[in-house]
């Protein structure tokens, strides 16, 4: 026999007495854990999207939508390739790299892939030298990035996956995404046939989990030639040296290219950022509900339990229980229901987040131990504070009530 068994025996005998407040805590923690998990992973996803594209500005055809850009399905609408040179010659402050793209549908091993034409950075160097422009050396005002300006590019073609630009790519070379490599069983050094022409596979990109996995990258001019598209592109990605640069670049680019649509990536994700902010506020609201409703429920459960057990408390005191032991006994009851509610709520909340996160927000949710620990901690602090007053009132009960007849 110890305090734990004493409390357990009572709760086991009549679990229904504590059910309501346990459920209240459980539901509160469920909502908190679920909303926070979805928010955190949704924010991460936005962050990743932003990062994967750098502090980017997109130059798109006037009537193109961002969805078109994302689905890499821009064959209908194009921009003249000469825009790339215009931007280059303007030498706008904060521009670090340019990446024009032309995407077309193609077939590899009888499967649909997106053939994306890109321009290797070496061609910009050449063009810049020819135009006697110092390439991308113009710092924008207040640039926080130390090394703004020309970068030493990683020569490995695989860097395309993370850097989104490539240093060298010959006319007859292609780089394939991980999915394409998998279903076509192509390896570097082999050739892939596209529009009747054989291109040599230069590299297979590491898996990124994005549409890039099912792309075949080739030289922009090769794609233009093979598809008879002319000197056009679907989009020009402009990489600013930092986040601040992007905002300043938009009006300048819009002025420079009146027939194009200029947007920042943060605009692309702004809806999701808004939803995330709403969910953050929602989780604060849920925490408030948990504190008020959960706390009140625990307080009332424990006080009514104290009232119900008056004679028993008196008897325990007659048998030699100190007031502090009586307090601890009722706090332990509160903690038991708090722990059951918090742990149950965490598990349920996690399940809800994993199911609904995938369904509603399209994010993959994984358990965040820190967040779960924090929620359980918060629930326990709430139950403790709520139970403190009734538990101490139990210690002040008159032990003489043990003599009362029932």
């Amino acid at each position, binding site marked *: *026999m110890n305090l734990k068994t004493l409390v357990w025996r009572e709760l086991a*005998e009549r679990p229904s007495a504590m059910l309501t407040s346990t459920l209240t805590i459980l539901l509160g923690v469920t909502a908190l854990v679920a909303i926070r998990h979805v928010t955190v992973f949704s924010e991460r996803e936005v962050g990743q999207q932003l990062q994967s594209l750098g502090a980017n500005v997109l130059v798109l055809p006037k009537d193109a939508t961002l969805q078109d850009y994302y689905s890499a399905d821009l064959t209908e609408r194009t921009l003249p390739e000469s825009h790339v040179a215009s931007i280059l010659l303007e030498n706008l402050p904060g521009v670090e790299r340019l990446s024009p793209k032309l995407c077309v549908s193609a077939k590899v091993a009888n499967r649909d892939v997106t053939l994306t034409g890109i321009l290797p950075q070496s061609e910009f160097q050449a063009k810049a030298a020819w135009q006697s422009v110092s390439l991308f050396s113009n710092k924008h005002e207040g640039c926080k990035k130390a090394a703004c300006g020309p970068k030493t590019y990683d020569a490995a073609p695989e860097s395309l996956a993370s850097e989104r630009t490539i240093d060298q790519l010959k006319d007859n070379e292609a780089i394939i995404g991980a999915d394409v490599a998998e279903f076509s069983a192509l390896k570097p050094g082999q050739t892939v046939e596209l529009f009747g022409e054989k291109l040599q596979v230069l590299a297979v990109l590491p898996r990124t989990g994005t549409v890039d996995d099912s792309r075949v990258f080739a030289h922009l001019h090769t794609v233009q030639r093979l598809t008879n598209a002319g000197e056009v592109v679907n989009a020009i990605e402009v990489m600013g040296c930092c986040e601040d640069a992007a905002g300043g670049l938009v009006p300048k680019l819009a002025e420079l290219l009146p027939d194009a649509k200029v947007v920042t990536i943060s605009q692309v994700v702004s809806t999701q950022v808004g939803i995330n902010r709403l969910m953050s506020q929602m989780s604060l609201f849920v925490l408030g509900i948990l504190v008020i409703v959960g706390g009140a429920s625990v307080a009332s459960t424990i006080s009514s339990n104290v009232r119900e057990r008056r004679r028993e408390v008196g008897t325990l005191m007659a048998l*030699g229980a100190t007031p502090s032991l009586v307090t601890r006994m009722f706090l332990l009851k509160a903690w038991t229901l708090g722990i059951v509610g918090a742990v149950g709520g965490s598990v349920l909340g996690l399940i809800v987040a994993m199911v609904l996160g995938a369904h509603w927000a399209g994010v993959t949710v994984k358990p965040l131990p820190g967040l779960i620990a924090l929620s359980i901690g918060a629930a326990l602090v709430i139950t403790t504070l709520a139970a403190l007053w009734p538990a101490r009132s139990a210690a002040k009960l*008159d032990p003489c009530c043990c*003599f009362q007849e029932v």
Partner: protein
Amino acid sequence: MFHLQDITKVYRRRQEEVVAFKAASLDIGLGEYVAVVGPSGSGKTTLLSMLGGMLSPDTGKVWFEGESLYDLPVTARTQRRRERIGFVFQTFNLVPYLTALENVQVPLFLHGVSKSEQRDRAVALLEQVGLGNRVEHKPSELSTGQQQRVALARTLANNPRLILADEPTGNLDPDSREAVLSMFDNFVREGRTIVMVTHDPGAAARASRRLCLNDGMLVMPEESRTTKAA
């Protein structure tokens, strides 16, 4: 064992004052078997509570084995009760959701006895009161007589030198009543002390001394002092 000095205990309720207990002086010696008798509401339970360190008097002092009980801090008073006093209640006051064994373990646990020793001693005590085959029963599964015997085992758990009993036979059938009273006889025979509130003349007759209460006052306390025939 006890020395009560200028004790008054008054309950106030809506301007109305009830003198629950009043005594200029009262001594209870070691090894005495005291029966407290009197009509309902005469202050018997009040007296018992004050002796047990659970109710502080408005005036006066309760000396228990040389210490003024109500000048001790609550924890010390609780400790005296835990180590030296056993209570017997009219309605047994067993914890309903604990088994007989666990009920007997409660005072041992409060005393800080280790788990295995708690068990061994509780089993021995239950065997002593003839309930060795009922250890896993809950109070609701026991007859009233058996419940009172579990309560007695619990009372004896910490080997008290004093028993304070409030109408211990009030709810019992004749056999169980006899079992309780003969256990009390044994307890006193070992030189220990009992103060028992009772309405039962037969029980009172077995005590070595009788205290009569009326409206909170002791009536002819010394007159009723008898020496039990050997």
